[in-house]
């Protein structure tokens, strides 16, 4: 799809605004949707086909509980999530999100029954055009997720898990899934790209895989005596795996000696689901910011074209303002940087730099300043993740507006130090620090498969590479028990500092 250089002019102008009653109707939602769609087309938003679904609050809670997906396999942790959500909602501690949107093709957006017409319009613009175009455009999503087959895959996963429960008992499956979930953040290929498969292929391959994987595993542990004339290849020095492996679940799926075929398949399911959500964890600021920017832009354009009444405008703007509120540090509502606020501000700022650059902007963003804003924005949406997006586009002006400052917390010092603030000497450092903050590598510990003791007790050694000397928290021992359950033999975890020295060890004996 070729990018538009500038928004197309309006094709029609409204003779009178769309009605904005508090109660929506299907017919009215359809009319709003048509206008929003036409407006989005003017800006060249390229989306998957939209499927809007109206659901009740209870169904929204159901969707919440199963990580936002319309189907998922059954597990107690989703039940816990559901009970917690239901309780908070019923007691009025929290409102539900206005929308859930699923990265699938067609892209499913849930509209909640309770929303007013103005809110439904906001949700459609935000989810069905903002998020949807992000899912379709961003490189991480294009590379890692397959929108066309995810629902099918989850249906397959649900049935497979149910069949396992029937065959092997609820307890066995539950315990095993617990262990897989404990490692799900470490079941992701960060660099390799998965291939795309249809459901039919998946099913056919699953059977082949079962048979094949089992023979492969056994090969590792072959105990048959070697032929006498075979050259001995210094087994003491040969390590397995030869290179450290970052995808723990993948390694276990392929190499754990004692797993049954169905257990390998469960590991694979958890791994696949984790992989599907991996891009979302890396593009929170970009994704929410993009959707927020576009609902703001689309609805404002519709107002300019005479489609929206003042009442509708005030209603969605109120909600919009709440969403992009950034409480300052120290405020009781403060819990880190609000991704909606930062993302929205950054896209808005990029547009400003394109249209009205200052001298400062020209110095900082020579190729952005004065460029047409629409293609620039699309470029920024497609080719970055949070880490690089912040590193590339956070402008000094925004840093001043947000009054960003960086704090260094060094264990060896008694006090915290303000390492940089929003001034001439600090811009680059603040930006760099914030960019690192969104690097998943620094948010989650880097743990890799280091060695398997092939000739001895078959124990597995994992190694934690400390990021700036940060240790693991106490939960590590518990997680290690889960690893041992998956591996079937003893498991060791070593934590190493930057110099490569092991500073701490954990050990769990085999089950």
């Amino acid at each position: 799809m070729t990018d538009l250089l500038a928004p197309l002019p309006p094709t029609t102008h409204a003779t009178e605004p769309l009605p904005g009653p508090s109660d929506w109707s299907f017919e009215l939602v359809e009319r709003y949707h048509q206008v929003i769609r036409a407006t989005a087309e003017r800006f060249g938003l390229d989306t998957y086909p939209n499927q809007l679904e109206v659901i009740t609050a209870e169904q929204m809670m159901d969707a919440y509980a199963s990580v936002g997906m319309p189907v998922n396999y059954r597990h107690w942790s989703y039940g816990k999530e559901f009970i917690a959500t239901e309780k908070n909602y019923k007691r009025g501690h929290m409102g539900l999100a206005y929308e859930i949107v699923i990265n699938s093709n067609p892209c499913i957006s849930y509209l909640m029954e309770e929303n007013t017409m103005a809110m439904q319009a906001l949700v459609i613009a935000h989810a069905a055009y903002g998020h949807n175009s992000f899912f379709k455009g961003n490189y991480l999503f294009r590379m890692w997720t397959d929108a066309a087959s995810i629902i099918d895959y989850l249906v397959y996963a649900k049935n497979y898990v149910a069949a396992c429960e029937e065959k092997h008992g609820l307890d066995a499956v539950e315990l095993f899934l617990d262990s897989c979930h404990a490692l799900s953040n470490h079941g992701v290929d960060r660099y390799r790209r998965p291939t795309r498969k249809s459901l039919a292929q998946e099913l056919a391959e699953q059977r082949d895989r079962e048979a094949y994987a089992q023979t492969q595993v056994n090969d590792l542990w072959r105990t048959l005596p070697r032929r006498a004339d075979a050259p001995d290849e210094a087994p003491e020095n040969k390590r397995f795996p030869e290179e450290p492996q970052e995808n723990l679940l993948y390694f276990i799926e392929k190499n754990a000696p004692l797993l049954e075929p169905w257990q390998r398949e469960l590991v694979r399911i958890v791994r696949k689901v984790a992989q599907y959500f991996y891009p979302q964890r890396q593009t929170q600021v970009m994704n929410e910011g993009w959707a927020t920017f576009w609902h703001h832009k689309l609805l404002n354009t519709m107002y300019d074209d005479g489609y929206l009444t003042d009442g509708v405008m005030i209603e969605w703007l109120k909600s919009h303002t709440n969403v992009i509120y950034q409480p300052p540090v120290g405020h009781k509502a403060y819990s880190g940087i609000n991704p909606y606020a930062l993302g929205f501000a950054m896209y808005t700022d990029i547009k400003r730099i394109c249209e009205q650059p200052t001298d400062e902007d020209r110095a900082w963003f020579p190729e952005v300043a004065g460029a047409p804003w629409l293609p620039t924005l699309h470029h920024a949406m497609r080719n970055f993740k949070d880490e690089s997006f912040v590193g590339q586009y956070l402008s000094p002006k925004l840093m001043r507006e947000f009054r960003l400052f960086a704090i260094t917390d060094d264990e060896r010092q008694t006090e915290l130090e303000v390492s940089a603030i929003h001034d001439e000497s600090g811009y680059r450092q603040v930006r760099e620090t914030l960019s690192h903050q969104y690097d998943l590598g620094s948010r989650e510990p880097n743990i890799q498969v280091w060695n398997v003791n092939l000739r001895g007790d078959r124990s597995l050694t994992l190694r934690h590479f400390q990021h700036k000397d940060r240790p693991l928290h106490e939960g590590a021992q518990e997680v290690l028990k889960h690893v041992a359950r998956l591996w079937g033999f003893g498991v060791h975890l070593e934590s190493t500092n930057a110099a490569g020295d092991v500073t701490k060890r954990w050990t769990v004996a085999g089950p």
Partner: protein
Amino acid sequence: MSLQSIIDRRLAGKNKSIGNRERFLRRHKAQIREAVKRAIDGRGIRDIERGEEIHIPKRDLSEPVFGHGSGGVRDVVHPGNKDFIRGDRIERPKGGGGGGSGKGQASDSGEGEDDFVFALSKEEFMEVFFEDLALPNLVRTQLAEVPEWKSQRAGFTSDGTPNNLHVVRSMRGAIGRRIAIGAGTRRALRDMQERLAELERDGDEVQARPLRLEIAALRARLARIPYLDPIDLRFRNRVKVPVPTSKAVMFCLMDVSGSMDEARKELSKRFFILLYLFLTRHYDKIELVFIRHHTQAAEVDEENFFHARETGGTVVSSALVLMEEVIRARYNPSEWNIYGAQASDGDNWHHDSGRCRELLNDRLLPLVRYFAYVQVAEEEQNLWEEYTQLTESNRHFAMRKAVEASEIYPVFRDLFKKEGAQAA
């Protein structure tokens, strides 16, 4: 442009999470059973059928993952700088991370020590309770089933469905309204018509003409009164009432002598609850009579029944005598279905046991529908032996030893079987 559509999913299954909820309950069965047990001990017999709040310590629910602990070097960016400049030093906030934990996600699944609290529904609560008592499934469904309802007339309402429209009432209302609303106008019309008649008699056309116009206006106004207005409509009202069967009284007899400790009383309580639950399925109105005894019997309220403790010896017959007295005084056997439930540890003054058997056999058993005895201790003493003789000649007498909750149900086996067949 591709197909775009809005789908109404509101009617499609809303309880998608029910399977997940079941798994959650299953996993925490031990805690839930404990909580249900505590709740039963704390509740009145009549109060058994409702949900319960369950507390589960958060650490039992945590799903461990690898994460960073405190320590090492962390660089964090915060918004909202007030007056810091580069190089400022700030005191470390207490409690590890504190203000410095700017990871952008304050999750609720943290390691807080608060309990995870949720409500067990009435059905789930009863399910756990029944499981404890090892009730067979058939009986479970029988007990869990909602009492039958009968729809009964209850006057008229102004709101309802067309099939309940009461035509006569509605028309009567309409007539009343037409009369009431039109009364003033009609009176004025009558006056004017008389005046007009007079004027026409006198031939005074000048004054008669405007009067005719006024009369025409009044007629038009009367004609505009609607024949039938929505406010006239009356609908037959029906309310649901539980099918009235008849009334029953349940006697709870318990030994409270020194040898009955708390555990035995709790067991007895479950025994009473089970009978009560059974009776609530069959009777509209159930009265409870609590009689406790040591060497003397007394009628007490529920609180005192379960929680007061006496010392001294045991004369079981005193309770049976009192039960008979209460029946004669207040519960005429021809009007009331009488049920007796007795719990004791089997300890009795040995000369008294024979008298107990006689009392039951001659005086009480002819009066009651069913009498169940549970001995909440293992050893068989003379009371047990005496009662055993009763089972041969009396089919509505049941007895059982129970040292665990799951052993209580068989006492009622016959009762459930018989009554269940009738009810079915």
